[in-house]
């Protein structure tokens, strides 16, 4: 299993660098997720990108999972790809509902810009040090964060039905 030995390299490298860098390693269906404490996320990310034996140079994706009503409520996942080493890795950071703030990874991978804006827009997670944290998909004056589990699928707004609009126009 070359996949596993590669993974161990990543875990060992990070553990050797700092014993606090990894709080948990999840192996599921051949994928490795490294759970990182919130305060060291940016350092770990920089390490993953810059370390000569890791070289995760492409940030493929960033997304969030809302585990409401469980705590810690939010999981932010960063999918990394190392093009020279042909390997994937997932970095995960867990955030509580009371303080959904994490360091932005834009200084490490500039491509994180819009991905983090999307997470901010849809989940309401704030990214420290993000250069341009605005809504990206929802209108600027939208209230709430629609992908949160406590946001109803049909939304909050009371939109009048077509029938009532039609009668209103006629009178």
């Amino acid at each position: 299993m070359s996949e596993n030995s590669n993974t161990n390299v990543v875990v060992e490298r990070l553990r050797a660098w700092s014993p606090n860098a990894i709080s948990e390693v999840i192996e599921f269906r051949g994928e490795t997720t490294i759970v990182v404490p919130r305060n060291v996320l940016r350092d770990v990310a920089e390490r993953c990108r810059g370390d000569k034996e890791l070289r995760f140079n492409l940030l493929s994706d960033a997304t969030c999972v809302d585990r409401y009503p469980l705590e810690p409520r939010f999981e932010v996942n960063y999918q990394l790809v190392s093009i020279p080493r042909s390997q994937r890795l997932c970095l995960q950071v867990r955030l509580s509902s009371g303080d959904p703030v994490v360091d932005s990874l834009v200084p490490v991978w500039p491509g994180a810009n819009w991905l983090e804006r999307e997470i901010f827009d849809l989940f309401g997670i704030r990214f420290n040090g993000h250069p341009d944290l605005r809504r990206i998909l929802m209108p600027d004056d939208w209230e709430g964060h629609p992908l949160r589990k406590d946001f109803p699928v049909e939304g909050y707004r009371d939109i009048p039905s077509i029938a009532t609009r039609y009668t209103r126009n006629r009178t």
Partner: protein
Amino acid sequence: MTIQSETSTVETATGKAKTMVLNMGPQHPSTHGVLRILLELDGENVVKAIPDMGYLHTGIEKSCEDKTYSQAITLTDRIDYLNPLGNNLAYCLAVEKLLGIEVPKRAQYIRVLMVELQRVSSHLVWLGTHAIDLGAMSVFLYCFREREEILKIFEFVTGQRMMTSYIRIGGLALEPPTGYLQRVEKFVKMMPGRIDEYEELLTGNRIWIGRTKGVGYISADDAIALSMTGPTLRAAGVPYDNRKVFPYSSYEEFDFDVPTRTDSDCFARYMVRVAEMRESLKIIRQAMKKIPPEGPVRTDAPGIVPPEREKMKTEMEALIYHFKIFTEGFSPPPGEAFAAVESPRGELGVFVASDGSPKPLRVHFRAPSFINLQALPTLIEGKLIADVIACIGTIDIVLGEVDR
């Protein structure tokens, strides 16, 4: 939005006093949908560009959370409407990974065949619309003529021209009809000559070269830093293709090249995509030889994959499974899975998280158009406004996928 109206002036990096703000879109024909770009212009030069989107945001990811795993397939068709089969494949691969099930080889090869046909059709739409943006009307008509042939094959095999939902969890929706390979064969024989025709019209065309060569340059390092993938990255000289690097659906058994270029301009991206069409035809030819004439197209996973119609009529268990799949759905074990495929636009990834219930906890689509569009300001800032149109076209965005 930082730039408010057409008359306001903004501080510029160059310190020039008079700049004009131009609101391009959301209804501009060359934005391929509803993309709005705020352009700050100094004469004809673009000083700053701010893309603004969300006009097509339909909350597909939220809707997926309210559907069972199988029901959500129909939503995936509508994300990137030029690549519905590729979206089906990415989503199904992610759910199959979550469930830990394998798909029969025959179904895998048919998946490859269909997805590669889809890639050709998507590149044809790209080539046609990109050419029409830059003033070459006839290429558009020829490209759509050939695309029609592909859509006819899709209609024959899947029953639908566009929103196919053909690739399902655990295999395919139905056995392909008799004679579909002959149709594909006819198409594959006709297509190389047609690609030569497009190249005759464009590759040596002086206007085409003038509009695309040296336009929209981005270095390989910048492209990787901005998370670009797909033909745009390969035109910068990075041979990153998911089909080769992380093979899925038996792509490792196929022999094909990953076309790359080093110029990293609009012309290089055009050449990469044309070469990719030829490579896709190569894969289709191999897939046609590989597909066994008979065999299952669905995996044998009771409770997840709907049983055969014949069995439903004769076996009690099959009937119960059928009823449960379509009323309650199935529950994958709790966990998270990320599957990525190479869509015509780049790396299309699907992230699925399960909490052990029949509905997904979270479905996320890593939309290549959305992330590639992020590089647009880098491509156009400091360049002419006429090049903006060439650059939007060359990224090959589908606004349905950008906004989801």
